């Protein structure tokens, strides 16, 4: 196989086929949803905070879409446990691609970052730093690539 096949390494396929933390958290601190309208990828993230109101205790997700978007959500759900909301806020595109451990082709970046954006928007809305929007979309992301 030629170039680019890196994107579908075993780890990504494993998370896609056997998603971790799939489902919902009944007593979630906040919940947010997002989509890539062009791709049809959808992600819902449930986040439960520790008693300190700062540390992420648990994350669950539900979704539908391509392998990159769903594997990214699965991996992020594990990655975020134990981190603070500040640390979540500081995450960027590079952190997501580092987490995925593969080169993401430019056209697929919006798939990769969907879960991260949903979690970040959810946190910002919860903290009152952002107006409540019903859905996060990553179209801005695709425009910039």
């Amino acid at each position, binding site marked *: 196989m*030629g*170039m*680019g*096949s890196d*994107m*579908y390494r075993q780890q990504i*396929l494993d998370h896609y086929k056997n998603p971790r933390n799939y489902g919902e958290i009944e007593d979630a601190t906040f919940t947010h949803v997002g989509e890539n309208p062009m791709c049809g990828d959808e992600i819902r993230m449930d986040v439960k905070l520790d008693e300190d109101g700062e540390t992420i205790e648990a994350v669950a997700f539900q979704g539908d879409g*391509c*392998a*990159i978007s769903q594997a990214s959500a699965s991996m992020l759900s594990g990655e975020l446990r134990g981190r603070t909301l500040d640390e979540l806020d500081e995450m960027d595109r590079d952190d997501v691609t580092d987490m995925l451990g593969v080169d993401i082709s430019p056209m697929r970046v919006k798939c990769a970052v969907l879960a991260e954006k949903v979690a970040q928007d959810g946190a910002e809305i919860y903290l009152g730093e952002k107006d409540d929007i019903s859905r996060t979309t990553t179209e801005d992301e695709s425009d910039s690539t």
Partner: protein
Amino acid sequence: METRESEPLDVETIREDFPILQREFGGEQVVYLDNAATTHTPDPVVDAIAHYYRHTNANVHRGLHHLSQEASIAYEEAHDELAEFVGASGGREEMVFTKNTTESENLVAYAWGLNELGPGDEVVLTEMEHHASLVTWQQIGKRTGADVKYIEVTEDGRLDMDHAKEVITDDTAMVSVLHVSNTLGTVNPVDELADVAHDHGALVFVDGAQAVPNQPVDVEAIDADFYAFSGHKMLGPTGIGGLYGKKHLLEEMEPFNYGGMMIEKVTYEESSWHDLPWKFEAGTPVIAQGIALAEAVDYLEDLGMENVQRHERQLAAYAQERLAEFDDVETYGPPVGEERAGLVAFNLESVHAHDLASILNDFAVATRAGDHCTQPLHDKLGVAASARASFYVYNTRDEIDRLVEGIDAARELFA
């Protein structure tokens, strides 16, 4: 026009004119199956662009020097050639050069639609319409108060003509319809639709973006009032499209863009408009692109559009046959053997279309995945996206076999 009717295309010789097809990615020669998005440009057309800039370059219409005269003649004659190619007997006066099909659509929507439509009027589209037409008329409808209605698509991907006859009424002012669906491959009965529309006094705009490159087109046999196409989907350069319009309609219409080139006389208070088609080509036009597009038409005429059509349909039928071997591959549009154009949209059950296209790309097989600018149609099909393989004069059966190998690999990877 010299054509070699009823001859198979000499694909091996044709491919020599397209050096881009020799490119390799990851050691594999590229298999380009994204022709409905854009086609490649053969050497004679690239040479025509280079020759224009090296030998002829000048602005058109207004120069009194040799270069401007040469450029003007070549640019104006390109209009005649394109008019003839789509069967417009009125020559250049019925052929406006635009940026692409979308701009042709917008030209009519703004210059005709905004002035002629109002509350109580209806614009009839189809459920398989491309966003170029769908979004344009939807928005013109909002601005004018006209209603937009849709002719339904049947289960097997055809227009429901009984429904068409219900939807098109005396309130219909415009029927805008795809000649060939870029998602389903369906060839629509545009001549029949034009008859229905004209019986009710409505005009007909035909989006021929996927038809002009792939089959003989005769706008007068269809009796289209307007007919649009794009240059880059028919071996020409990007940045140029065409709009055929019946002369009396173009004469009655207001200009789309204002500025230089499109005027006859200007005072501080008033302006009058230039002759057709220049009234619709404000500013310095698409000179090099227009001349190069005429060269692309020469190339296609030399192949013979009947031969181009047969070649593509044979490839599409072969692709459908190969894809039908697999229970987990769903194809869209009319079934094998039906009247359809050279493209096949499909989904592999276990793999999202974007993943599939990415994996095919690993095998240097270029396809398109997404909604193909037909989001509402995909909603109706019940899928978010589909992969699409589309064929042209330089494609082979071997390349379709490479596509199928890539699909096999994707299935295995995701198993």
